[in-house]
């Protein structure tokens, strides 16, 4: 078994060894070994040129990453967490996302950006955001959310190989989780959702840190005679509409689990897709289980109450299936 963080490091090593254009840039990725210990040991193997500790200037080192990609390199930029990426949003939205389209196809920005996301560690409102939906809203970039150890490895390889800007969100609660890792097998397309557990009565649709909670909820529902299917979105832009619609066309009920705030969330997007394209398959309204719309509180019992938990998922599924 391998840990999620080791899977990411393995991918980084493979990329750095095989392609001289690849280099890693970010705060404390070198000497400190990475804020989540993902890049430990890489400085010793690849040196200061290709493992670059940056000053605390998110806008400029993300912008420099975009410039280096324009200049023919394949940079991997680590923005410590999505919370600090807000300073770099201008470079992302006004440069990375538009360069190819606005230049009439002349310029390519093959950059991969990794950042931790999500809450659950009692680090309060400024450090616990889930803002994947802000990035998944923007045409011109792609967004991935690896929930498993295998995806954490495969998706980073795909992100660096892709000619377009790709943003990979690693939920901070996953770094320590363990799972099987096969570095030889040919990985499935990262742009397709996956059925992590088949079921007949209701589709639990989730991504990133919420997938494990959906699986746990499905186990509990099984005991109460409700067969739940778990769909892991994996790709947040583009969304794999066919797999989502396919699943709900079999179960006729959907519960979407998303650690972001409900308003304007990816859960809202999935719900709108189902209302527009699977309307005649729905036997109950689409349910959304999201974080309570409040700045993330520090106290443990408050944070746990705010973030979607297994119990809320089970309740929502039962309301959808049994009704009343």
């Amino acid at each position, binding site marked *: 078994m391998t840990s999620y963080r080791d899977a990411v490091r393995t991918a980084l090593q493979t990329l750095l060894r095989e392609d001289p254009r690849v280099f890693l840039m970010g705060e404390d990725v070198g000497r400190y070994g990475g804020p989540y210990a993902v890049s430990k040991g890489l400085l010793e193997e690849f040196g200061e040129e290709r493992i670059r500790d940056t000053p605390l200037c998110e806008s400029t080192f*993300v*912008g420099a990453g975009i410039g280096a990609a*324009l*200049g023919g390199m394949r940079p991997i930029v680590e923005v410590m967490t999505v919370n600090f990426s807000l300073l770099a949003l201008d470079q992302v939205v006004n440069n990375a996302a538009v360069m190819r389209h606005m*230049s*009439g196809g002349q310029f390519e920005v093959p950059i991969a950006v990794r950042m931790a996301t999500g809450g659950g560690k009692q680090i309060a409102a400024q450090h616990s955001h889930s803002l994947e939906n802000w990035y998944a809203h923007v045409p011109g970039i792609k967004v991935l959310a690896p929930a498993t150890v295998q995806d954490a490895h495969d998706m980073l390889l795909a992100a660096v190989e892709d000619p377009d800007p790709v943003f990979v969100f690693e939920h901070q609660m996953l770094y320590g989780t363990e799972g099987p890792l096969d570095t030889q097998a040919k990985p499935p397309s990262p742009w397709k959702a996956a059925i992590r557990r088949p079921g007949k009565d209701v589709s639990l649709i989730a991504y990133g840190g919420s997938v494990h909670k959906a699986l746990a909820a499905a186990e509990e529902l099984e005991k109460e005679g409700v067969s739940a299917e778990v769909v892991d979105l994996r790709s947040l832009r583009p969304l794999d509409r066919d797999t989502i619609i396919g699943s709900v066309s079999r179960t006729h009920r959907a519960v979407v689990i998303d650690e972001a705030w409900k308003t304007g969330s990816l859960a809202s997007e999935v719900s709108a897709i189902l209302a527009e394209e699977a309307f005649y398959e729905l036997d109950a309204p689409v349910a959304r289980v999201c974080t309570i719309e409040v700045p993330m509180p520090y106290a443990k019992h408050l944070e746990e109450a705010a973030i979607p938990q297994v119990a809320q998922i089970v309740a929502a599924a039962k309301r959808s299936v049994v009704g009343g």
Partner: protein
Amino acid sequence: MTLDISRDDALELLRDMIRIRRLEEKSAELYAKQKIRGFLHLYIGEEAVAVGALHALREDDNIVATYREHGHALIRGIPAGEIMAEMYGKANGCSGGRGGSMHLFSAERRFYGGHAIVGGGLPIAVGLALADKMKGESRVTACFFGDGATDEGEFHESLNLAALWKLPVLFLCENNQYAMGTALDRHVSDSDIANNPPAYGVPADSVNGMDVVAVQRAVHNEAELVRETSEPRFLELKTYRFRAHSMYDAELYRTKEEVEKHKKHDPIEGFQERSLRDGLITQADIEAIEVDAAKEVAEAVDFAEQGDWEPVETITRHTYARDLS
């Protein structure tokens, strides 16, 4: 003090400045006639900076500019027709009609564009220089920006990062005395802009941006130093824009007298008189240049008028490398 340049250089510098001015005058006319829409920022008065600088840089150097970039694009080699067509929004424009006046691009000529976010181009220039350094290519990345950009966080971050990682960036600040409607001394604490960069270890100098020969010489010296040391340098070019910030600007922030005072240092008229006085060029040369410029502009307008509109069906093309649907 006589000009120590050849006749050919004098003709070349004068020609390019006049080409820019006639193109910009025509753009103003076409904007009034609603052929060009959106925002339009004219370069009239600042021609000596683009001409002097681009004549001093090499064809292979990277150029990153701002939304006031028609002059830089034209002298860099993007055909006047493609620039005009782009301002019309036609498919045969240099950015396919997608960018407009503020976003002229040319991959072939390493012209990394017009950038409309003030200061937004600086990190890109730092990144381009980083890529060249890592690939072992000895190329200069010239980054043009206005005095307004020196207020942005990215300006300070970029100077620091370029100095820290010793990146071959030539920061060229076109100080035209105004950040849109705010005069220099009302938006910077130290209006001697060249004082800032040394705080980050970036050597800085200043030059009269109205004197095309001085600009060419200064940019040449700075660029060669950057090329040799692969370390960033900074040059302030003091200049002045004779027209409003953009087409919809009542210029409440400055007086007519101030504009007239600066117009006496018109970079074209000044250089024209000195070249005539030193016998480098003749009145006939000037008329020939004017005729050529008028012809180039007329052909550019025709090229734009003949261009097609991009059909809506291809609107999503180039959003990604391969279409997602």
